[in-house]
Each structure stands twice: as C-alpha cells, then as structure tokens.
C-alpha cells in the first residue's frame, strides 16, 4: 500500500481518522500510539508557537483554554510558510469570532496588539524621523506633507483598555483594572527594543490617518472633527519622538 502525504497530513490533523494505510512498525502492524507522536508534535509545536507569540492572551484565558483555542485555530489555519514566528497573523480575527471567548470582548484586540509586537520585533531596521526635521518645516507647508511610516510601527485602536491590559500582564502579579475604556496603542521600535505606548484618543485618530498615507492637513482635520480638543503640534511631535515615522524624504515637502 503506498503512503500518500495528503492522507498522512489529514490523519495528523484529525485524531478521529485511523492510522494511514501503509504505515507500520517493526512488529508488522500499525500502532496508533506511534502515529500519535506525530499528531502530538504538530499540535503541541504549533500551539507553543502561538503561545509564545500571544503570551498575554494565554495568561488572560489560562493554558488549557488557550491550547483548545489554538487547536481550533490551527485545524483551520496551518502556517502558510515555515517562518514560524510569523504564524498567527490571522489569529486575532479568529479569536474575535471564537464563540467560547465571547465573555472576554477585549481578547481579540489584545491579540492584535501582541501580533503587532512580533511584527515590530522582526521589522526592517530604520532610523526614525528626527523631530528636528519636522520643526524645520515652515508651518504653512506642514499641511501638505505625507510622512512615511517606520517599518516597525503599528497602531491598534480598541474600545477596551488593551494597552493597560498588556502592560499589567508584563508583571508577575496582575492587579485589578478597568478594561471598558477605549485605548489607542502605538507599537514602535526606534532601535532594537519594541516599545508599547498608549496615546490619547485624538492622537490615535490622527496617527491612524497619517499612517494610512493622508497628508498632515487631512489627518488633522479628521482628528479635529472627532475630538475638538485635538492638539496638532503636540500629537505630531509626540508620534515622531516615539519613532512612528521613517527618516525618508518628506513627500509634499518642496525643501
């Protein structure tokens, strides 16, 4: 009987299937315990990879729940490449739709923040835009400028306090916190250390627009419309000093 890798892979992922045809052992018979070593390796190694990428989500739900959720995810979403640190880019969306986790509405956005953290960790090295470059621009020209996002930057905006949750779970002991508070969380990596910052809601709206390629003028208008107390200069210099933008030629800057 010829072994075919499709049947082998299917049996790895579905423990209700029998040992694939053609598989045997030194006794000349199939042995389910032996085949289950491969099953366990696949599920345990991929669950571990997800647990390493989403340690706060794992702590929030506990190991047993997390492993069940990871197993449900990997059954429908195996890694698309052997670069395993990138596995789980779609895990936050899966968590958002995972009915057993519905009691924790902040879980998916916390996962988004953790996914952003890993992407930032592995992102290309780049010098952040120095604040001085912005200060040197004539004020009347600022509105027309588009800034290049730094390769590591990512923004997660949530109806929940995901930055506070994330920060609290970096410690051994987690105290109580109010989670039903909207937060915008910026992840940057100006050099080699990943940084996580909660930014004011208005700055979050502004950052979201700038990072999506709007001009500073357009982004400021969007932020003003939503938050009349928006402080343009403070927000722009704040984001730049956190390392949100790359030190590349400023588009729209005639200088």
């Amino acid at each position: 009987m010829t072994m075919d890798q499709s049947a082998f892979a299917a049996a790895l992922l579905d423990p209700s299937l029998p040992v694939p045809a053609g598989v045997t052992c030194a006794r000349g018979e199939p042995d389910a315990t032996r085949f289950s070593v491969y099953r366990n390796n696949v599920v345990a190694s991929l669950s571990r990879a997800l647990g390493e990428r989403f340690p706060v989500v794992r702590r929030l739900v506990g190991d047993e729940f997390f492993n069940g959720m990871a197993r449900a995810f990997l059954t429908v979403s195996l890694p698309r490449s052997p670069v395993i640190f990138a596995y789980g880019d779609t895990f936050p969306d899966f968590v958002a739709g995972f009915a057993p986790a519905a009691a924790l509405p902040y879980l998916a956005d916390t996962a988004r923040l953790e996914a952003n953290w890993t992407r930032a960790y592995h992102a290309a090295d780049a010098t952040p835009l120095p604040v001085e470059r912005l200060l040197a621009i004539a004020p009347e020209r600022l509105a027309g400028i588009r800034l290049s996002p730094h390769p590591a930057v990512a923004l997660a905006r949530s109806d929940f306090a995901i930055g506070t949750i994330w920060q609290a779970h970096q410690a051994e002991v987690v105290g109580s916190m109010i989670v039903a508070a909207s937060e915008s969380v910026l992840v940057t990596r100006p050099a080699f250390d990943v940084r996580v910052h909660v930014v004011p809601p208005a700055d979050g709206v502004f950052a979201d627009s700038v990072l999506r390629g709007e001009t500073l003028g357009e982004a400021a208008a969007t932020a003003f419309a939503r938050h009349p107390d928006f402080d343009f200069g403070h927000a722009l210099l704040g984001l730049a000093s956190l390392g949100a933008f790359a030190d590349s030629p400023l588009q729209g800057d005639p200088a």
Partner: protein
Amino acid sequence: MNAITPSTSLLPARAGLGLKPEHVGEILDTEPDVGFFEVHAENYMGDGGAPHRALGEIVARYPLSLHGVGLSIGAERPLDTAHLGRLRALIDRYRPRSFSEHLAWSTHESGFLNDLLPLPYTASTLRRVADHVDQVQQAVGRQMLLENPSTYILFEDSTIHEIDFLERVAARTGCGLLLDVNNVMVSAVNHRADPFAYIDRFPVERVGEIHLAGYDETMDGAGDRLLIDAHGSPVSDDVSALYRHTIDRAGPLPTLIEWDNDVPAFPVLLAEAARAEAVLDSAKSWRDGRLARRA
C-alpha cells in the same frame, strides 16, 4: 598548489552549541571557547531587529552552522521557491561554514505542519529527494548536508535501507551528510535495529557534522520501548557510548549539542559541549600519536 578543502569539513572538528536568544548576552560578554554555533535558519528570516543584530555579533566571533528545519525536502509537492530565496539571502549574508537540512517533509497543500515527518524509502522517493537536494544546492549556491531522521513508524512500501537511501542521494547530488547520533539511537530502538551496526555501515567519509541530543522514553501500544527525539535533556549514556564509537570509526568531526526545549542556563550547555570535546580530543591525540610514530 594548495589542496582544496572539501566544504564538508569547513566547520572545526570541535563541539558546538545551538544559539539561544536568552544566552546571546552572556556569550558576547564572556566569549566562551565554543567550537561553533548553530542556528535554525527560519528564526532569522525576519527583515531586521534584535535577531540579526545578535547573529551578526556571533558570526564576527565564531564559526556558524546554518540548520534549516522547514524546507520539506521529502515532500511530494515542489519546494517553496520563496523559502529557497530566503535561505539564499541568509547564506549570502552570514556565510555559514555549513548548511544542513533534513530527510523529512513538513509542508503539504494544507500548510506547514511544523514537524519533521517521515517518508518511505523507495526508488521514486529517492529520485524526488535527490531532485530536491539538487534544486536546493543550485538555489543556495553551495553544498548542503542531509540529516538522517528519527522516526517512530515504518512504511510497508519501503524497499531501500535508510543508509543506502542517504548514500545514493549523496552520490547522485554531491551533498554531504549530517549524522545525528541521537536520531540513530531513537530510530534503532524504535525499529528493533542495532544502532552500532548502523554506525558501522554509515558512509562516515561523507559526514560533515554530527548532532547529539537527549531523548524522552515512552512505550507504544504493545508495550515496546518508544524513544522520542525531544532535545530537552542531556545526551544519554547510551548515545554518548554510540558517539564514542562513531568518532572511533570516523575520526574527529564537528559535533553539535542540540538542546531546544526547556533550555537550561548556558553553563549547562557548556558542560555538555565539554563532554563531546573530550571525546574529540582523545580521538585527535590518538590520531596525532599515530602520525608521529609514522614520521
């Protein structure tokens, strides 16, 4: 004319260690006398950041072995050319002394299964593996070493002994072999074979590197011993004895201690490396003594 050094011997015939991120700071601070470091290629396939900075610092001080765990050379499907491109970029950037991969498969249409899965040894799988090894060596521009697997099952349609399979792939492609002595023990116990006989038959002249690791032990459905390649403990006494037997037969060879799970403090790894190094030293002094008598 200088003799051409075969690329299978470019790593020093010393003990090396797997590089773990949590040990990098200590290694750079103390610069321990380790023969070489080995990394899993896939962990360094990001665009930048701390992993590349660390690897650059290590390569400036130590010989590097690059060990792939995701190429899926034994797969029925074609190799992933994007992954070959990433490997090529890493090899061009860090110039490792050795590049190795596994006689196994891990990728299927449904995705990457993240385990080293076994294949039957037949004329058709031999042709496929040799074609894939050819393609890899073309793509990365250098010789690779192919590693013998640890396996838990056998296939009814296997017709070729694993050693003959590896030797024929090497003969056809010019690749070298990576002899994982722990894998030899694991597979031999699991399939009721003699691990020492395996070493005695193995084409050691093609071996560019040896791997050592710890295994876990359990039982199969009939109560037979079942060893699991676990990489989470010291090298066991029986594998150490098999390693000494290997070096007695093959002479000193670059030897890696693999410890990838439940990674201990760095000094524990250094002590493991020292044990292997002692075996290599005694083989070297025996060889040197013989050469001196001849002169």
